[in-house]
């Protein structure tokens, strides 16, 4: 049997696009049909939203000076054949 609907695993792959409003209408309908009846996926979506909201309010931390120096040194020391 093959029905025109999505399952939880497929929803998980579409969740970010759903939150971004990037789904085409036909897929959006399938996603919302699934969300209307799936507690687990609604919880999952809520977790993603909460995480995104928390991260968006967190300032990006600058690396420690020694970490930055080590990264720059590694970049400069990489073999010539690896350079662009």
């Amino acid at each position, binding site marked *: *049997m093959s*029905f*025109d609907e999505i399952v939880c695993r497929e929803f998980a792959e579409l969740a970010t696009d759903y939150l971004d*409003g990037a789904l085409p*209408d036909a897929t*959006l*309908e399938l996603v*919302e*049909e699934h*969300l*209307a*009846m799936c*507690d687990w996926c609604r919880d999952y979506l809520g977790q993603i939203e909460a995480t995104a909201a928390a991260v968006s309010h967190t300032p990006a931390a600058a690396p420690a000076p020694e970490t930055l120096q080590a990264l720059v040194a590694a970049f400069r020391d990489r073999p010539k054949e690896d350079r662009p």
Partner: protein
Amino acid sequence: MIAYKFLAAGGLGPFSRYPWPLPRPGTPGAWVAAAGGAMVCHDAVHACRAGDLPWWLQDELWEAELGGAVTPGRHKVMAPRARLLRRVDGWGPACAQRFADACAGRARDHAVTALDRAGAGGTADALRACTTPREIRAAVRAGRPPEVARIAHTMAGDAAVRALGGAAVVAAYIAAHAAARVDGERAMDAERAWQSDWLRAELRLDA
């Protein structure tokens, strides 16, 4: 066009969380426009025909007027704007539970059909005698169905468990899939039609 709109408790859009303007006695709610995608959904307000209701059950059911060109979707309709006219008072936790119980009964019936066809008369009779989700759950736990009817039998138990938890929309979904498991995809459509008819009659809907 008159259609229906399921909302979360407090008049909130179940997906958008948009607070719908509610009607006051004698006065419809304010029009809500899709406004180029920003306000409610991408580019349309969504609502249900009576036949779409079983897919979208939420806390509150409202009768809504749709404005502008209405576009039919698979299990919904879309319009540029809509407003709420009145709350369908018959829909609430008690009605949702009756619907969930009815759907569990339908899933039971599909399992009984599968068991009868498999020649498992004793297991079928035990399930057929059940009248409540609790009894269905117990019978499924005690039953030993033949492999060919095992999934339909399990689905009857799942529908009963979800009905006991008050998850009407899930019990309806399981009943529809149980029908398909036993009699194919057209049976799923018939099951959804039965569910819509149940809601239409119970809630005295005429749109």
